[in-house]
């Protein structure tokens, strides 16, 4: 496997920008949340690419360990975030983020 690290970083950047656009454009709270997951994934991809670039060194595996922790944190984040969306849906009967502009419940 000999892909230049640049290509993978470029792909990671493109995926990140698509995630940013999703957060900026969509109004469905769940789709916004999925876009955030996409951004986390593109960052993970960059980390793995850097770990591969400095491969023979033993320290390169630290990139893999960091990705492992990012995935664990993302799982926790998804659990809490989806619980928040369910709680908002109970009071507002909608998950359109335009409907959640007021601070009162």
């Amino acid at each position, binding site marked *: *496997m*000999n*892909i230049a*690290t*640049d*290509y*993978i*970083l*470029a*792909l990671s*950047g493109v*995926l990140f*920008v*698509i*995630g*940013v656009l*999703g957060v*900026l*454009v969509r*109004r*469905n709270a*769940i*789709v916004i*949340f*999925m*876009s955030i*997951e*996409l951004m986390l*994934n593109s960052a*993970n*991809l960059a980390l*793995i690419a850097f*770990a*591969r*670039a400095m*491969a*023979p060194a033993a320290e390169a*595996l*630290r990139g*893999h*360990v960091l*990705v*492992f*922790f990012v*995935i*664990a*944190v*993302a*799982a*926790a*984040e998804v*659990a*809490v975030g989806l*619980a*928040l*969306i*369910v*709680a908002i849906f109970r009071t507002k009967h909608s998950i*359109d983020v*335009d409907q959640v502009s007021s601070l009162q419940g």
Partner: protein
Amino acid sequence: MTLDLILFFGIAFIAVVSAISMLISRNAIYSALFLVLNFVAIASLYLLLNAAFIAMVQVTVYAGAIMVLFLFVIMLLGAERVETSPSLPWQLPVAILLGLVLVAEFAYVLFGKVAQAGGELTGVGEGFGSPASVGRMLFDQYLIPFEVTSILLLVAMVGAIVLTRDDRKGSR
């Protein structure tokens, strides 16, 4: 143009197209399924990058557990389609403009700074990225963060239960 490059461009094409489809599809269920496709494509890229363990974790945790949770919530709320409220007229152009600025910054950093530092990839050692090697690194040097992660997951679980608990009288 080697087989590796052809594989990479095929997988990258699938990843980008599924991400864009996730962004523009109106139905949230379709968005979730396109995101699963995107995660599987990225997992196969991890395999190409000698990260076997992370690829398997990606498939089981992300494409498996997390996306099932998403689909479960979408179907529970019946929120496949959000009725489109009148949006800000300038929202889409401004978002595209900001996205293009971000692309330009990425390109500048990537081809200005990183490209000068990058060299030829060398071969990996035996068992690089295998579960055994990653696990040894994890439990030798990162044991405390690993245990803290378990507390974090416990807190997230308790938080999710507390947030979705029904507070009405007589529900317990």
